[in-house]
């Protein structure tokens, strides 16, 4: 099970991070539009479409990565007081009845939605530039599949936590500044009181 959890974490992280770089393209692309629109008075017809396609792809493909790193916000003011075992029991049930139906719908109904769009070669209705959006609608399916795989890993995490009363954390490579600083502070404190 741990092997699968690691696999899913890595898979989600790989896709999440790869698509995260769209933010650079988005900054530069929108920056370019600012230049041609306000300096040269010849705005592009596609900038608006391209910016929402990048934004939408970025957050959809980052959903599973965020899930694997516990980044989706929880109303956890009770939850955080529970033992890991209790947390895991509740999570396990809710993953099965809350999480999977919706994520499965993203894949299956999303497939239907995207396939229809491919069939008539749908382009964005926002501009006459004809920017294709069928590939963008397919992102719904891709994000659904990633979430589904990550969801199985989360279920396994719950099962292990129920057995051992301990959560298996994902390997982290980036931290919010506050988490990093708080981590350093608590380590420093531990060192001073051995």
């Amino acid at each position, binding site marked *: 099970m741990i092997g699968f959890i690691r696999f899913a974490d890595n898979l989600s992280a790989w896709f*999440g*991070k790869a698509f*995260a770089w769209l*933010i650079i393209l*988005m*900054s*530069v692309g*929108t*920056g370019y*539009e*600012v230049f041609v629109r*306000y300096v040269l008075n010849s705005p592009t017809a596609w900038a608006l479409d391209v*910016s*929402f396609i990048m*934004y*939408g792809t*970025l*957050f*959809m*493909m*980052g*959903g599973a990565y*965020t899930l694997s790193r516990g*980044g*989706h*916000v*929880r*109303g956890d*003011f*009770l*939850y955080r007081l*529970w033992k890991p075992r209790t947390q895991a029991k*509740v999570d396990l049930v*809710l993953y099965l009845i*809350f*999480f999977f*139906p*919706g994520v499965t*719908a*993203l894949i*299956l*109904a*999303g497939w*239907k*939605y995207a396939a229809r769009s491919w069939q008539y070669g749908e382009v964005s209705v926002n501009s006459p530039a004809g920017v294709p959006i069928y590939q*963008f*609608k397919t*992102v*719904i399916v891709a994000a659904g599949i990633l979430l589904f795989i990550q969801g199985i890993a989360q279920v396994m995490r719950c099962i292990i936590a129920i057995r051992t009363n301990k959560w298996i954390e994902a390997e982290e*490579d*980036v931290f*919010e*500044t*506050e*988490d990093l*600083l*708080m981590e*350093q*502070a608590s380590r420093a*404190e531990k060192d001073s009181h051995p």
Partner: protein
Amino acid sequence: MTDPQVALMMLGLFIVFVFLGFPIAFTLMAMGIGFGYYAYFDARRMWRDFDRLDEAAGTWDQWSTWFEGFFNNRIFDLFVNQTFTVMSNEVLTAVPLFLFMGYIVERANIVDRLFSTLNIASKNVPGSLGVAALITCALFATATGIVGAVVTLMGLLALPAMLKARYKPSFASGIICAGGTLGILIPPSIMLIVYAAASNVSIVRLYAGALLPGLTLVGLYLVYVVGRAILQPSSAPRPSADEVPDVPLGKLLVMILTSFLPLAFLILSVLGSILFGLATPTEAASIGALGGMLLAFLYRAMTWQRLRESVYLTVRTTAMVCWLFVGSYTFSAVFSYLGGEHVISEFVQGMNLTPIQFLIMAQFIIFLLGWPLEWSEIIIIFVPIFLPLLAYFEIDPLFFGILVALNLQTSFLTPPMAMSAYYLKGIAPPEVRLTQIFAGVMPFLFCVIVSMVLMYVFPEIVFYLPELFYGG
């Protein structure tokens, strides 16, 4: 049970389920899909293929077609449709760009320069260290908009300095907690973008409207800090000469030029181009992100490692916010399909409230929600419940939004989920106790409430700039 009653049950159950601590985006999604399954349940349509099966169809065909009927509910299509609506929401495109700008600026080695400059510049003011800390917080928070980073960075920098100068620990902590949360209010703020996406109020009007209230709140904080330093000098003693270096004016000017001005210029150019209609918020955010990178580069803080961190943190925070929208759009589509909005508005109208009573009730509920929940959940999920009622009570949704934004300052400061206080506690020296932090925060909470009353009594503070820039 009538459909509207079912809708109310949906809302009630959601509030219960939130407390189970499951990721809220998926809780909302599940509630929307579950109740939507009921709303769209139509046996004739779902088992149409089964009913039309040939007599000769095999057993397997019969079973599989019957089984497929369960998945033939239109709620699944509605969910996908709403997901796509969030994906193509043009207002939200500014969210990742502003977050990215924030993460870059936060890593630009800027806060210590800023603090030491302001500290020297304000040394003749009573409570100078506190004033410098507060202004640094406000400025830095405005540029980054990321509460945790501001509180922890300033907690490591300014808190020890204030404690060393024998400031009362509670007073010093209050300054940092309250100052650090200003970034979600003062534009360009992500919270206001999210409110705009939830309420359809123009984001630029919101930005213009939030500017004076934000400055008013900073002003109230400053009055409190300086006033307390004068009235109770023991809580904020004057630093001794050796604690604040004597810097010649010329050198001070250079320090201001290199630390204060670039950041101020970045903020003003982003904000100015939005308010003067020179660029869309999304365009301005991209300029802010590029400008932030340039700034970090000039401060020699732009490393490959930091860029990667900023990029990855951007995708995670964007996903967190936008998946909440995916959940809540689905939830609210089903809620209004069932007629839930009607019941709520009829119920509230039946209470015979005056507009001011309604306003106080709404803000009080939002204040209470701010104890256990965070701003994103409140704005994306709960504020939309009040929005349809505003027209009935003739309350401008812009005005309401600014009050909410002020109000939600408190959500970071009130236990049990006082994130600012926890961040500070996490990095503060062990002798600073959480109770002290909470005690120090109280007067600032009071300032927030005073500012809300001021907005109500003098609504021009909110409306002056939007009307000036964009007309009535």
